[in-house]
């Protein structure tokens, strides 16, 4: 736990700093900078694992598309309240999302595993056989 946290923290802080410097709206083409919802990309052995926090989103409301080395995640988060309710505090928001991420390898479409559990979407993307790294023995 400690190892993951500290290494992760460093990367996360670095990226936040980079984002602030590079991706602020002044240099961008649109008024839209940070991604919604946030996603993380991990490496698990040779596979890539993309995780997205989308609490309250139903399986039916998520769409995944894979092409080459890109993964597109789109969907909608709906928030419904009972009728005749008065709002005291509103911090959660409803949104539509559509994000595409580029991975470091082409994806084997037949081996993709996607799971939506406890509001976290996890997509495991194994590389195509021909894109797996080959080890070379030094003779």
């Amino acid at each position: 736990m400690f190892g993951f946290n500290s290494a992760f923290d460093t990367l996360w802080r670095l990226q936040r700093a980079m984002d602030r410097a590079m991706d602020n709206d002044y240099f961008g083409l649109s008024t839209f900078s940070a991604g919604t919802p946030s996603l993380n990309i991990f490496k698990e052995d040779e596979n890539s694992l993309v995780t997205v926090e989308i609490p309250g989103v139903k399986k039916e409301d998520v769409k995944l598309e894979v092409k080459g080395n890109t993964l597109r995640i789109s969907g909608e988060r709906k928030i419904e309240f009972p009728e005749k309710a008065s709002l005291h505090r509103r911090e959660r928001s409803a949104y539509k999302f559509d994000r595409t991420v580029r991975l470091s390898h082409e994806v084997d479409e037949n081996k993709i595993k996607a799971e939506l559990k406890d509001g976290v979407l996890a997509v495991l993307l194994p590389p195509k056989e021909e894109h797996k790294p080959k080890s070379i023995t030094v003779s």
Partner: protein
Amino acid sequence: MSEKKDMVTGTKHELKSEEEKTEQGKFYKPATDIIETKEDLVLYMDMPGVNKGSVDIRVEKNQLTVDGRIYYSRYEALKAQYAEYNVGHYTRSFQLSSEIDQEKISAKLEDGVLTLNLPKAEQAKPKQISVS
């Protein structure tokens, strides 16, 4: 892409607690909606990654505290490549008024959203007064 969005979500807020934690790990303040109906107050809290077994809800001296635990074990074999969010436990407290019937509080966790039902005490329910 941008025009499809209704609203930009807030990023996760790391908890800046007055009291110090005795354990390691990050703590976040779950984003919460609170609504009131005739019968009850309903709290909706976003706690992605938390399952039923790892939520702790308790009421002490009119303070309602919700704790949600994350298991780091699922991240142990992973190497982070690109990160936009961090993971950690969730914790948040609310002060309850005497209008809440503390005995009847109920909770439900679904898709990472915790729904808390806080029924109003009998005397706090709105009454219709007819003009004679």
